[in-house]
Structures are given as structure tokens and as C-alpha cells.
């Protein structure tokens, strides 16, 4: 398994953990609390801190065990795979944004118990998870 592949897999796991934590916090809130700007910004800040801290620790550990490859730039095949994965990720994000706008237009009749702001954050995290998963899979497949 290459260094890039390991790092993508671990990044995917970290983003998944952050996504589940975020979803748990959002789903435990009442609809009124979800619309509260202070609570939402606090949640976003904790999400950013969690992600950055875990990514830094992950990269330090990974680089310590793979010192030879840690500073190596991506080669042309890895770059083309990253582009393909990014396009999948952006496609998921587009669908998510359209879905959020649709749910905003329909309003409270729409069954999803999550406010549009949180829906957008969840979709962004989900698209990132899927993008990283696709990249790891394409790197594995060759």
C-alpha cells in the first residue's frame, strides 16, 4: 500500500468520525436549537478544530513510520486519480446543494429533521468521505 493510499484511507476514516460526531450533535438538537446561530457556529468551530487536530496527528504518525515517502510529491498517476476522485466528490456536493435548496423551498412539510445549514455541512463532509474513498479505491485498483 502506497503512502498516498494510506493517507487517503486514514483521512476518510477521520472525516467519517467527524461526520458521525456532527450528525449526532445535530440530531440531538431541537429544530429551534438547530436554527440558533450561536449553537451552529460553536458546532462548526468544534468540527474544524476536531478535523485539523486529528489530521495533524494522523500525518505526524504516518510520516514517522514512512519517513522516506512523506515529502514525496504525488506522481502523474496519483494526480490523475485525485482529479477523478475530486470530480466524483464535487458531483455529490452538487446533488447535496440542490437537495438542500429543494428542502428549503418546500419548507417544514419536508420530512428531514435537519436545518438547511447543517444539511449543507453534512453534505460537504459526506462528499469529502466519498471522494477520499473513491481515490483510495482507484489507487488500490491500479
Amino acid at each position, binding site marked *: 500500500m502506497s503512502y498516498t493510499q494510506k493517507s487517503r484511507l486514514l483521512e476518510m476514516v477521520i472525516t467519517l468520525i467527524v461526520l458521525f460526531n456532527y450528525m449526532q450533535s445535530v440530531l440531538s438538537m431541537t429544530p429551534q436549537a438547530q436554527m440558533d446561530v450561536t449553537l451552529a457556529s460553536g458546532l462548526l468551530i468544534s468540527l474544524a478544530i476536531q478535523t485539523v487536530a486529528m489530521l495533524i496527528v494522523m500525518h505526524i504518525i504516518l510520516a514517522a513510520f514512512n519517513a522516506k515517502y512523506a515529502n514525496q510529491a504525488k506522481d502523474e*498517476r496519483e494526480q490523475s486519480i485525485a482529479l477523478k476522485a475530486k470530480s466524483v466528490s464535487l458531483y455529490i456536493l452538487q446533488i447535496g446543494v440542490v437537495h438542500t435548496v429543494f428542502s428549503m423551498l418546500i419548507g417544514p412539510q419536508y420530512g428531514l429533521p435537519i436545518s438547511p445549514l447543517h444539511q449543507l455541512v453534512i453534505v460537504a463532509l459526506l462528499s469529502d468521505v466519498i471522494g477520499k474513498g473513491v481515490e483510495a479505491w482507484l489507487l488500490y485498483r491500479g
Partner: protein
Amino acid sequence: MAKLPITNTIRALRFEHGEMTQQQLAEIVGVTRQTIAAIEAARYSPSLEVAFKIAIVFGQPLEKIFQYNR
């Protein structure tokens, strides 16, 4: 994954050059070992730059290493 129409003789050339490993070739060319493995298995077509670098390593013209099968 489907094989590409460009095949190559890198595997044979590596063995002719003192049983060079994929890792050694990758380090000379400046790509990862996985990329060399993918090129050898005809799952990835390298850029012209990488193809020329491989040709220089083996001291062969490009068309002796890479073949286009229609």
C-alpha cells in the same frame, strides 16, 4: 480494470538490466512503485515524459518499449 491498447516490455527489460526491481526503476524515473506496476500491467498509460525517462533508463528507443495494439 480493462487493459489499455498500449502494451510494453518493461518487465522483460528490467530483468535484462540486472533484475532491476520496480522500486529501483520507480526511483530513477521519479514515480511510485505502484505506477510502474500499473504501467507494466497495461492498466495505465504513462505521459510522454515518463515514457522517455523509461526509454533512457533502458537505452532503447521508445517504440521498442511501448507498442500500440489496434
